């Protein structure tokens, strides 16, 4: 990646630009957009920039947070423009949801494994149009007709008479060309489908990569915050100064401390917690895990809980020799990104009035930042043009950095102190003030025989993210992984009963599937075991209507990596989600502390069109790690509103020594659909049910409540 800020000043005067008027034609046709006059004047609005040195840069609204999206999308561009991979770059775009927002949603955000799915066709189309117009520009620049010019690998154009010319040499005429009526795609799979090296690695091995937390500005001061020990408590009164602090600021939901360095700010903020008078939330029972678990249990027993939503209505538990009535439970979880929440903000005043707010931050939620800025006193009238967002590399996101709490605090601090401020949360504050993965209780009632499940009644009782946000009357996310199952189960009733809670909730990698897939796949495995059926064969018998699902599971069953795992230590699970198919088998053993450890894992993935198999493999490896440490060790409990988590010390995660050998088979997707599925989240959901399945075979005990080893710490090996 390049440093966007530095580039801008260089670029406008001396190098050619596909932008300006051309931007209109590079917009994805599926959006039906036309260029706004403002966009045309500034060049903002282009996805593709060609520099004088013939490097070609994809400008993307999708945030690079480790998943490799900048490189993956650049591959799509590079394929159509027949680029040499060495000349390709990517940059984070400015905020402009009309141009850079997800084509399916119109929002500039990164989440839901949607980036590749939604951009694939629009970006291919935009790139193919650019290729067509570069040929037209070559004709205008050197002679001949558009059709006589062809693309040559390496960002070049060739004509029988005029020879080879670089893209850069024809850009002077690009604004005089117009969009073709239709485009055809290169389709050579020269770069798409290859495991080309991602573009952001060099800075990540030599320390020069700039994450949000690495922003340095002249005259900058450093800040940290302390929140109420009882989550969601607010500041009633606080000291207005503290020894060693440059400023102490009441932020409403926290107290901010500004100092000459981050460590001093964190230390002073921590020392102030007991000196602040906090207003506690009114009903602590809504903030207590034990009380919430009791309520969830009652809601599972109730005939018709309040606000019950029913998604598939035909169900009865079904007849058959096999019966299951079980409740599965999954805990509140933290996001625990390696990079704690942080944001740097500079406020500029003109004649004493704020005229510009500039932010540098790791964010998955660009669309929401302007409204966050305007919500601060005195900033309500700022225009979009007066709010500049620099999206930095994200040191992990997992859903947490779509939220605006840290952004709001940083803007308030910058307004209060009148200097550039970098806000950095301490790790304990990050853990204790998360937007947690909801607690879920899932009751599965099913009947079946050796041929399959005959009926399913499913009730998810969980703390609903959308209910808490008040935005969605129907919470489809809460039942994701339980509805539209791939299995041919003749009658199904899928219910969702919201569990009232005041614990702040958020989207956590794989969201609904992170808990519903645990319940559904565990239940299927239990029934198969009870009926003496092979877990894969049993599923295959119910996958009569989905050839891709069948192929994924059949491939797993036939893999030597699968058959080599001892049956008494092996567990299997399957997911159809995020427009992808994932079959997972893992092998377990006991570690020296008699805890479960994963010794091997094998994934079979069908994610449709594969952009980069190396990235798919990386996401499965990472998804496995995320799934293992979450299922085995972790929960965030709340006692009367106080989160019982401190740091990684009591939120156990994995280290290299815990890593099992992972193998990944990537299937070539159905050519008929020819679309990519999501991979950023798809590796996570199968891990917990596969662990439970393996443990059942190994121990004779079925674990239905996660985590397996609550209370595990980082140091108790």
């Amino acid at each position, binding site marked *: 990646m390049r440093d966007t800020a530095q580039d801008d000043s260089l670029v406008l005067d001396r190098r050619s630009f596909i932008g300006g008027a051309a931007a209109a034609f590079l917009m994805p046709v599926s959006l039906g957009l036309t260029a706004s006059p403002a966009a045309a004047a500034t060049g903002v609005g282009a996805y593709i920039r060609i520099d004088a040195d013939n490097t070609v840069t994809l400008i993307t609204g999708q945030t690079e947070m*480790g*998943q*490799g999206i900048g490189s993956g999308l650049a591959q799509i561009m590079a394929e159509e423009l027949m680029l040499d991979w060495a000349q390709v770059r990517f940059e984070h775009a400015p905020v402009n949801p009309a141009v850079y927002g997800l084509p399916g949603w119109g929002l500039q955000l990164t989440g839901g494994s949607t980036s590749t799915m939604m951009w694939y066709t629009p970006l291919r189309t935009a790139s193919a149009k650019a290729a067509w117009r570069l040929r037209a520009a070559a004709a205008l620049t050197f002679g001949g007709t558009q059709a006589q010019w062809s693309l040559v690998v390496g960002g070049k154009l060739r004509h029988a008479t005029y020879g080879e010319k670089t893209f850069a040499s024809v850009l002077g005429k690009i604004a005089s060309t117009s969009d073709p009526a239709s485009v055809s795609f290169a389709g050579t799979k020269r770069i798409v489908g290859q*495991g080309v*090296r*991602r573009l*952001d*690695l*060099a800075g*990540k*091995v*030599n*320390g*020069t*990569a*700039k*994450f949000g*937390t*690495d922003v*340095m500005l002249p005259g900058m001061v450093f800040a940290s915050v302390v929140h109420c020990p009882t989550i969601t408590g607010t500041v009633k009164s606080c000291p207005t100064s503290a020894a*060693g602090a440059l400023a102490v600021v009441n932020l409403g939901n926290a107290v901010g401390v500004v100092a*000459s*360095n*981050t*460590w*001093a700010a*964190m230390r002073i903020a921590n020392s102030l917690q007991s000196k602040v008078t906090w207003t506690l939330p009114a009903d602590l029972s809504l903030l207590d895990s034990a009380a919430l678990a009791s309520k969830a249990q009652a809601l599972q027993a109730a005939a018709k809980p309040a606000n019950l939503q029913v998604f598939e209505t035909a169900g009865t538990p079904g007849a058959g020799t096999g019966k299951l009535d079980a409740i599965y439970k999954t805990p509140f979880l933290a996001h*625990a*990104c*390696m*990079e*704690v929440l942080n944001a740097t903000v500079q406020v500029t005043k003109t004649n004493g009035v704020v005229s510009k707010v500039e932010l540098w931050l790791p964010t998955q939620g660009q669309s929401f930042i302007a409204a966050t800025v305007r919500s601060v006193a005195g900033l309500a009238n700022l225009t979009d043009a007066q709010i500049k967002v620099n999206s930095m590399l*994200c*040191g*992990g*996101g*997992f859903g947490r950095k779509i939220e605006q709490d840290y952004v709001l605090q940083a803007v308030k601090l910058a307004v209060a102190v009148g200097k550039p401020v970098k806000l*950095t949360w*301490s*790790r304990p504050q990050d853990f204790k003030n998360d937007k947690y993965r909801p607690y879920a209780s899932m009751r599965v009632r099913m009947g079946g025989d050796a041929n399959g499940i005959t009926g399913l009644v499913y009730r998810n009782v969980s703390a609903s993210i959308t209910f808490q946000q008040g935005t969605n009357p129907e919470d489809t996310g809460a039942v994701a992984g339980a509805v539209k199952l791939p299995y041919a189960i003749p009658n199904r009733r899928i219910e969702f009963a919201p569990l009232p809670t005041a614990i702040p909730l958020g989207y956590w990698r794989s969201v609904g599937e992170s808990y519903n897939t645990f319940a559904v796949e565990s239940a299927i495995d239990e029934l198969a075991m009870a009926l003496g059926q092979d877990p894969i064969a049993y599923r295959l018998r119910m996958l009569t209507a989905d050839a891709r699902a069948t192929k994924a599971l059949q491939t797993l069953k036939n893999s030597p990596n699968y058959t080599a795992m001892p049956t008494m230590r092996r567990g299997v699970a399957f997911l159809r989600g995020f427009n992808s198919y994932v079959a997972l088998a893992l092998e377990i053993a006991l570690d020296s502390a008699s805890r479960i450890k994963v010794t091997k894992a094998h994934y079979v993935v069908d994610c449709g069109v594969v952009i980069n198999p*190396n990235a798919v493999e*990386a996401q499965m*490896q*990472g*998804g*496995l*790690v*995320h799934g293992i440490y979450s299922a085995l060790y972790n929960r965030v409990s709340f006692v009367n509103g106080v989160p019982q988590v401190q*740091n*990684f*010390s009591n939120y156990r*995660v*994995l*280290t*290299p*020594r*815990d*890593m099992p*050998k992972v193998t990944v088979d990537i299937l070539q997707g159905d050519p008929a659909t020819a679309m990519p599925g999501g991979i950023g989240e798809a590796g996570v959901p199968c891990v917990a049910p596969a662990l439970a399945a393996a443990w059942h075979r190994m121990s004779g005990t079925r674990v239905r409540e996660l985590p397996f080893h609550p209370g595990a710490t*980082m140091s108790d090996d």
Partner: protein
Amino acid sequence: MAQISFKLNGVARTVTVDNIETPLLWVLRDLLGLTGTKYGCGVEICGACTVLVNGQPEKSCDESIGEVAGKSVMTIEALNSDPLGAKLQAAWLQHQVPQCGFCQSGMLMAAYGRLKAGESRASTASGLSNICQCGTFQRVKEAILSLPGVA
């Protein structure tokens, strides 16, 4: 105010701090602008802040600047100055180890410190205790085990 002198990436430096308890991590990041070394946990668990102090991997979040006086510190920014460090970085690229990349400075410095001290590739690969929430561990190990010319 106190003045502390130490060697940083081979160059003699003197810094002025108002508290000698200030951790080396924050002197590097906030005072000297060397942001390659990361804050992850602040309690010596995650390893994102790992640097070498007198050749030993240390968690700089809990190494006060006062303790560093007169010592030699090496950070990620100088890793390529040693052929072994450069080799390690090349292996990281070859195996496409980083995802988000936030932990990788510390991961690399921890691995480098062990290898530099003569620890074997196998022992280094299985002995690292750095946290990576993207889960890059398999590739970390593969990269270390692939190093040419290292025992």
